[in-house]
């Protein structure tokens, strides 16, 4: 046991000194902080932008006053998101020439938007065209605002010409909002969630799954690099003259698990720090946190043992990539379907994936943080499956490790490795 600790200690000290660890540990929190800051922005607090110039060619000849009024009301309500409308005279028969001229102005950047409204627009026919230089993704929101404002103007004009009270009609057509009220353990105070809280509610489970992914998979990589370094520098046989392969394996796993916990601690601290700064509350009941620690430890044991087995038969990182492929794919699956899993944390897909051991920690991190009331029976069942799987993996990998670690030259095939498993 003393030797195992010595090895763990060295592994920890040496890994902490490497550049990859340093970058990985610093880079992640930067990413997390950035994501949280962006998230809180998207959640409603809108930022300002310069006023947009918009030229309007009104071919009905009767709309301009209403258009101007609609934009004025908008500008009063959102002074940071102004539009400056201007009227373009369009004498009969010169419509095409006007369009060409205005289109050129938009193209030159002298104008943000140009809108042409067909003559038949007020009669329930025709269309409007809007000209813009930028890509659709950039001004999608602004174009839909313009469309809404112009339609409002057209609606008002129609009412006026039919002598109807626009307020009465608007009252009749009023959209009734549907507000979501969350109940149960994870409910926010007051029950009502803002849009921002809803986004956070979706992102938090992903965050915990991603943390689990980085903690297990990202930190597991150090096992591969450190083993292959020991193998290629031939120091491995000197070590094995002092300790048994099992002691070496155990020491390495222990040291790297400690590294993983250090990194996760740093990441969590930075995430909570950034979230607090922005007034976001990341809610995670302590029961769930305890489960996550269990999943992390089991998941890390499993993956680092697998990587030790892979690393022991490879001479270079490049060689190990072929063997890593299926493992990587298994770990990517939950990341790919995360949205589906967050929406239905107790759906069939989520439940099936929870019982496939390499994915269990990731999927359960997501499910438990999405729905803290996931059935404890099911939670413990997945833990049991994982806990039964881990010793099998360690047993098999220790055998491969013992034989593979001193092999140089061509990497043994899968069939050969299976033969090692059958040997005593």
């Amino acid at each position, binding site marked *: 046991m003393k*030797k195992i600790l010595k090895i763990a200690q060295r592994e920890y000290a040496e890994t902490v000194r490497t550049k990859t660890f340093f970058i990985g540990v610093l880079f992640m929190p930067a990413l997390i902080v950035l994501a949280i800051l962006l998230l809180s922005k998207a959640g409603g607090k809108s930022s300002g932008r310069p006023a947009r110039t918009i030229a309007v060619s009104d071919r009905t000849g009767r709309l301009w006053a209403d258009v101007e009024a609609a934009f004025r009301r908008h500008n009063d309500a959102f002074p940071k998101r102004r539009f400056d409308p201007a009227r373009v005279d369009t004498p009969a028969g010169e419509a095409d020439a006007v369009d060409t001229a205005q289109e050129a102005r938009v193209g030159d950047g002298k104008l943000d938007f140009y809108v042409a409204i067909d003559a038949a627009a007020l009669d329930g026919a025709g269309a409007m065209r809007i000209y813009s230089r930028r890509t659709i993704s950039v001004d999608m929101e602004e174009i839909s605002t313009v469309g809404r404002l112009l339609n409002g103007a057209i609606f008002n004009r129609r009412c006026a010409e039919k002598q109807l009270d626009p307020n009465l009609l608007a009252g009749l057509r009023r959209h009734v909002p549907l507000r979501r009220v969350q109940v149960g353990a994870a409910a926010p105070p007051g029950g009502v969630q803002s849009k921002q809280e809803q986004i956070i509610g979706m992102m938090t489970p992903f965050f915990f799954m991603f943390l689990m992914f980085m903690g297990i998979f990202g930190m597991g990589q150090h096992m591969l690099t450190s083993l292959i370094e020991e193998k290629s*520098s*031939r120091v491995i046989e*000197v070590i094995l003259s*002092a300790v048994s392969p099992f002691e070496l394996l155990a020491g390495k796993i222990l040291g790297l698990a400690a590294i993983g916990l250090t990194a996760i601690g740093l990441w969590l601290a930075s995430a909570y720090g950034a979230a607090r700064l922005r007034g976001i509350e990341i809610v995670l009941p302590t029961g769930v946190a305890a489960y996550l620690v269990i999943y992390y430890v089991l998941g890390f044991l499993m993956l680092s043992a697998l990587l030790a087995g892979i690393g022991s038969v490879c001479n270079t990182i490049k060689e190990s990539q072929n063997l890593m492929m299926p493992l990587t794919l298994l770990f990517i699956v939950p990341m790919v379907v995360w949205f589906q899993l967050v929406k239905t944390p107790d759906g069939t897909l989520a439940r099936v994936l929870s019982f496939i051991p390499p994915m269990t920690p990731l999927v359960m991190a997501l499910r438990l943080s999405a729905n803290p009331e996931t059935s404890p029976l099911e939670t413990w069942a997945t833990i049991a499956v994982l806990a039964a799987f881990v010793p099998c993996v360690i047993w098999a990998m220790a055998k491969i490790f013992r034989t593979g670690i001193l092999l140089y030259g061509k990497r043994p095939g899968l069939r050969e490795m299976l033969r090692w498993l059958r040997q005593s």
Partner: protein
Amino acid sequence: MIEQPPKAALLLENVSKSFGDLRAVDSLSLRVPAGSIYGFLGPNGAGKTTTIRMIMDIIRPDPTGGRIEVLGGAAGGEVKGRIGYMPEERGLYRKMTVRRTLRYFGSIKGVAARALAGRADEWLGRVGLADWADRKVEELSRGMHQKLQFAVTCISEPEMLILDEPFSGLDPVNLDLLKAEILRMRQAGRTVLFSTHVMHEAESLCDFILLINRGRTVLDGTLEQIRSHWPSNTVAAELDGPTDFLESLPAVEAVRRDGRCVEIELAEAADEQELLRAVLPRVRVRSFEVKVPSLHEIFVRLVGGEVEEDS
């Protein structure tokens, strides 16, 4: 002749190891007396490294009922700390400093934390690396790396040293240093086992010799015992005068000439004294030497031209 000490530092009985279809070690038995220098010889691929790795419990022998006893106990576990092992493939952590390297390997070899710092500095001085203590291993020259590797092997002051091909790739200065340390170890009552495929290194150092080929014992015993089984059949002589008559003598099988020196291969059962008597009346004899067969010659005779002498 050296008295055979009663205690064995290392005992192998009918140990075998196969890799797939290849039988690397085949029912090998050996006994290394405590306090001796034991040469483990054989050509490349004879099974030396495999045997040594089994002694170190790095690989396990086939379960064929063989037995390995190291320093009075089973191989592996606690006994590893009492053996200093230098593998054929030398290697250390490149990014560690020289001092940390010594301390780390000392600590996993079970050297007590109190003794470790002093012990590391002592060995740094002994191999002349004291000025390099805080440099990284990757900065060392090849020769310094070899010295550090030897210091790592000895840091725990083991009861037994096992050196796998210790002389390969050594520069002459390190070669002398290593030989001196091996002799010093024996003087301190420790056991040294080393493998080599270079026979003359073994001849100059070893008390006991085991020759193996294809995983099996070919020769086993002290140098004198081995030589006595292989009587000389060659005489080297320096003669003044014509030597044409030699071929006609009944005791002579063949003659090789090199200036005044001749090398005479004796016929079967011929006596070199008889040859001398036959030569004396005809020419003046400046020297007449009955050549002791070298291990290399013995080995070549035993296994055919399979030995590569590539030191």
